[in-house]
């Protein structure tokens, strides 16, 4: 009896971890860019897709998949993000609504470009690490690894923002770009680096999910709604926001998609998103700031 309850509890925990990891990993790159510059990067899904392609490419030519190929992919996507930022996005910090159109255009070019170059899909990777059983159910080890990765990436982000010089300058820019600039911080460099960092995180997400799905030009579409609603719910502070929103939404998302369907899960996200914007326009990180504990920057 105790064993049954324990295995049920583990099942619920596993489902939650899966949803949590999915939302956090989908949102993390977007959250960094949004928190820093207030720009919603509509090419985010395509950056994830690019990460998955590059990971697959490296794994195919013999680089160990986990984590080397994924890290390489993250670096490549980060460089690509830097290029996009320097060429296009940096011209839109003064007119943010136009940046939506521009980043969307970039996304369109990337999706179609990949489609033209590699066709409707390429041969995928098999999920590593096998499975384990608890009670009567069998679980994928890799899903647990993804959950651990989500936590690790949050910790990495925390360390980068709290303990490095880049992080200090980035937080200063986030709080007040004018003052930071007058104190000698190169804010436009900060913006470029943050955009590259966010892109690299998106690429890493793509790499992490590459072995779990078909690698196709529309790979990123599966992450879009999830990432946007997590970021909106999280608010301006990338760390606290993503963590809290990932936790809260992950719970409902796994519950709804597990019990009913993906449609129910997405509908739940949409409703949660509208409710949160209604009552907490600055998201959960705004709430946590008001409660007065965590202060990473934000506004």
């Amino acid at each position, binding site marked *: 009896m105790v064993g049954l309850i324990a295995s049920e509890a583990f099942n619920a925990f596993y489902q939650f971890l899966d949803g949590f990891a999915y939302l956090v990993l989908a949102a993390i790159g977007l959250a960094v860019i949004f928190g820093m510059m207030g720009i919603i990067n509509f090419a985010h899904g395509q950056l994830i897709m690019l990460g998955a392609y590059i990971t697959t490419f490296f794994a195919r030519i013999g680089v160990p998949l986990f984590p080397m190929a994924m890290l390489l992919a993250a670096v490549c996507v980060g460089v690509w993000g830097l290029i996009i930022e320097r060429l296009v996005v940096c011209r839109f910090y003064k007119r943010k609504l*136009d940046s939506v159109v*521009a980043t969307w*255009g970039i996304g369109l070019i990337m999706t179609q470009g990949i489609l033209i170059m590699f066709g409707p899909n390429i041969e995928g990777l098999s999920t590593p690490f096998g499975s384990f059983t608890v009670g009567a159910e069998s679980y994928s080890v890799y899903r647990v690894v993804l959950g651990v990765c989500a936590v690790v990436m949050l910790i990495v982000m925390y360390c980068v923002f709290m303990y490095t010089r880049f992080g200090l300058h980035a937080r200063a820019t986030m709080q007040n770009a004018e003052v930071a600039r007058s104190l000698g911080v190169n804010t436009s460099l900060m913006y470029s680096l943050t955009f590259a960092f966010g892109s690299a995180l998106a690429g890493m997400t793509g790499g992490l999910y590459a072995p779990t799905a078909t690698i196709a030009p529309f790979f990123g579409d599966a992450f*879009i709604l999830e990432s946007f609603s997590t970021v909106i719910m999280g608010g301006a502070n990338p760390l606290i926001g993503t963590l809290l929103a990932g936790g809260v939404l992950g719970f409902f998302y796994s519950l709804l998609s597990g019990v009913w369907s*993906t*449609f129910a899960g997405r509908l739940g996200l*949409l409703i949660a998103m509208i409710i949160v*914007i209604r009552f907490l326009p600055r998201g959960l990180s705004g709430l946590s700031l008001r409660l007065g504990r965590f202060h990473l920057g934000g506004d």
Partner: protein
Amino acid sequence: MRAFDTRKATAVSTENISTVVLFTVLLAYPLAFGSFAVLNLSYFLSFTIMSLSLTLIWGYAGIFSMGQPAFFGIGAYVYGILAINYPGASVSLLWLLVATVVAGIAALALGYFMFYGGVNDVFASLTTWAVALVGLTFLNQTANEARWHVGDALLGGFNGMRPIPSLSVGFGDWSVVLFGTNFYYFVLGLFLATFVAIRIVRRTRWGYVLVALQDNRERTKTFGYHVCRRQMIVFGIGGALAGLSGVLYASWSNFVAPDVMSITACTLPIVLVAAGGRKNVTATSISSILLMYLMFKLSASGTEWAFVILGLVLVLVVLFVPNGIIVALFDALDAHVVKPLLGVRRRPSQVSETAVEGTKEVADASRGH
């Protein structure tokens, strides 16, 4: 600000000349071209009505909706369900009206939650887009025939719903199915009506308030206007127009699939409108028709580059001509060709524009931007 210039404009301007030329060409088109070309153009024109809805809500009121295809889809599906269950010429136009109204009500409801909830700018884009994506997810999983049908109409999942009867006019024996040239003129009539209405709105008090919403919502509120209600109403009207566009599409293709709400479909109206010049009805109409034609040609020639080109157009336009290519063309022609020909000396418009920009910057600064 030029697009909303309140000074009495001279009747002869590139914009007005282009409008006259555009509608003359559209009216005469079936006389000069074959039925296949007319069929295609009526398809482009139905889409152009959705572009006009975006001009109204994005170009005028500054609500950047990325979810117009959601209302397009609602219009198409509602019309399809009604027309399949109750076919017949006498009720056909009623179903057009009902579907348009349903799409409008859906937009009003969404607008109520968004604007009264203080959702604006990029968050409004995200929310509208999310609505389209949720609609897409919902419709894609309706393949089960036993479960997902409304009367005789099977929703059909990603295979779509068919066959949707074409629109028809008249009663009993004296009815005409709108097809070919008939349908073309029907669509053209609706397009013209929408076009004229939106152009007139630009010159009314109601229209000025919409433009004020785009410039500065706080200040508009201080002037005593009910900002949320205005936004909701104009968003509702935009939704209804997109719904009308969807009905025409469903009637044209006798078929509708969830793809009409796909991510790609959500991109299309934005490209069409942004490229031409989102604040100008004539410019958006011309760019919609031309770009739809271009896309049609590109996809007919079997190339996959259509969307790369579209994306490139989008990026380049927002980078270099944020007011739109066709509006820039209008301005250039006005300044260098039309006004010199008419003997109008160039007004010191630069001065007044800098002044307007100046006050705007002050306003932005005072809001802490």
